[in-house]
Each structure stands twice: as C-alpha cells, then as structure tokens.
C-alpha cells in the first residue's frame, strides 16, 4: 500500500527552479502510487504546464499534492493555485492555440487531455486554482509499464 508520506506536499512556485522541484515531486509521487511509466510522464508533463501557467500568468503560487482513493483505486490529485488576474474567458483559454502571451497556447487544453479529471476555479481579479486528478489504472490496461 502506498503511504501518504512522499506524496503529500505543498510546493512554492516562484521561479523556474521551482518548476523543476514540482516536476520531480510529481514524478516521485506518481511512481510511489504505482503509475506506469507513460502515465507518470503524462502527469509530470501536465504538472509542468500548469505550474508554468501559475508562474507566468498567475504571478506565482503553489502546488498541493495529495493521495486520493475511490473504490480501492489510488489517485494523485494536484492543485495549482495563484492569486493572479484570473482567467476571464475559460473556454477560450482552454482552446488549443489561444495564448494571451507569446506561448503556443497548448498548455491548459493539453494538460486537460493528459489527466483523468480536470477542473478550473477562477475569479477575475483574485486568482486561479486548477485541480487535476489521475487514477492508477490496474491490469489489464497497465501494459505500458516497461
């Protein structure tokens, strides 16, 4: 059984060095919970996109990681929050190719495709929280683990 220690964390997102710590924590937590290699890679990539948005668009914030369970399945929940300007038009922000800056505009919509559950809570003028959860898929679907 995975333990909460090593999964639960609150990490600051204030610089590109913090992005590295966020990725490493998510990688290690996902491995500990039993995610296969491809699912680990998807989660870490989604976390990297969301943490960079927290940093670049939200002006910094934090990531909270937690171990969740439902009906015997283990999941990893990640919440990225900031007290930045918020996202005025969420549908537009989620659409591929939309960026308010010089990005590719793939981060938010792409992150949503890489996880199982995705929710955004954003209040214009007071901040954004993006919560994502992925569940460990058990055999027979767990074939990608090399």
């Amino acid at each position, binding site marked *: 059984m995975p333990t909460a220690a090593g999964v639960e964390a609150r990490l600051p997102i204030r610089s590109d060095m913090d992005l*590295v710590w966020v990725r490493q924590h998510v990688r290690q937590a996902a*491995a500990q919970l039993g995610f296969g290699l491809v699912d680990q890679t998807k989660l870490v*990539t989604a976390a*990297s*996109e969301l943490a960079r948005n927290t940093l670049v668009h939200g002006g910094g914030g934090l990531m909270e990681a937690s171990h969740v369970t439902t009906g015997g399945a283990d999941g990893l929940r990640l919440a990225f929050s900031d007290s930045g300007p918020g996202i005025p038009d969420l549908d537009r922000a989620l659409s591929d190719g939309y960026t308010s800056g010089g990005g590719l505009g793939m*981060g938010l919509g792409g992150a949503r*495709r890489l996880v199982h559950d995705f929710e955004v809570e954003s209040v214009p003028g007071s901040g954004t929280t993006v919560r994502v959860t992925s569940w460990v898929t058990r055999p027979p679907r767990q074939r*990608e683990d090399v």
Partner: protein
Amino acid sequence: MSEGFARPVAGHVPVLRLGDVLLVTLQGDLYDSTAHQLQQDLSETIARNGVTGVVIDISGVEIVDSFLGRVLAETAAQTELLAARTVVAGMRPAVAITLVELGLTLPGLRTALTTEAAMELLAQPIVTSRSGGMREESP
C-alpha cells in the same frame, strides 16, 4: 522505477563538435533559463564555426512540455536559417506519446531514433521538393 532523480541542470549544456556537426546532449531536468541559453549558444556557435548540422540527443530527457518543445522547434528553425540542419535524436516513447496527447506534434522537426541515425541523416544530401519544402533523400 529504478532510476534515481534526474538532477536539475543549471547554466550551460555541453556542446561537442564532431567535424561539421555539433552534438548536444540534454540530460535530466532543465531549467527554462538553461534551455534558452542553449538556444542562444547554438546559434552563435553555428554562425562562428560554419557548422552544417546539429544533433540534439534527448534520450536522457524524461519529459518534454510545450516550453521545451517550443525551444527545440525554434532552435531547429534558427539553425535552418544559418544553413545548418538540426535533428532531434532519441526521444523516449513515453515522451512521444505524451507530446501527441498534449497536442504538440512539432511538424517540421527532424527526428531520428538514435544519435547514429541522426548523423547518417545529416550525411545525406538535401533535395528541394517542388512544394519548396526540404526533405532528405537516400543517395
């Protein structure tokens, strides 16, 4: 996984010169600033030394997000303007699967499975197709 943590890389990425080709090996988890620095260093090195090809080995890279993907694509486009071709070599299967799901297919980026295959690709002549795009062809 048996692998230990990839140590973050600050500062510069080593660039090795093999004849007319630059070999860049990315390893571990890069700071954004390191990736930007590399992009700049490469262009300067190419302009100064008349390099005709660049191989970026990413077999040691565990994730490519939209930021690093963009840096790779921009680097390739830049080297192209400086008359050098760039090949990204050794992408891990998990990274490729994730990139496609992310929506980042990086069209125009030349890839090879290994560094050796990338070197072979660069040794082949360039042919200009009728559409104006460039592609490699076996001799």
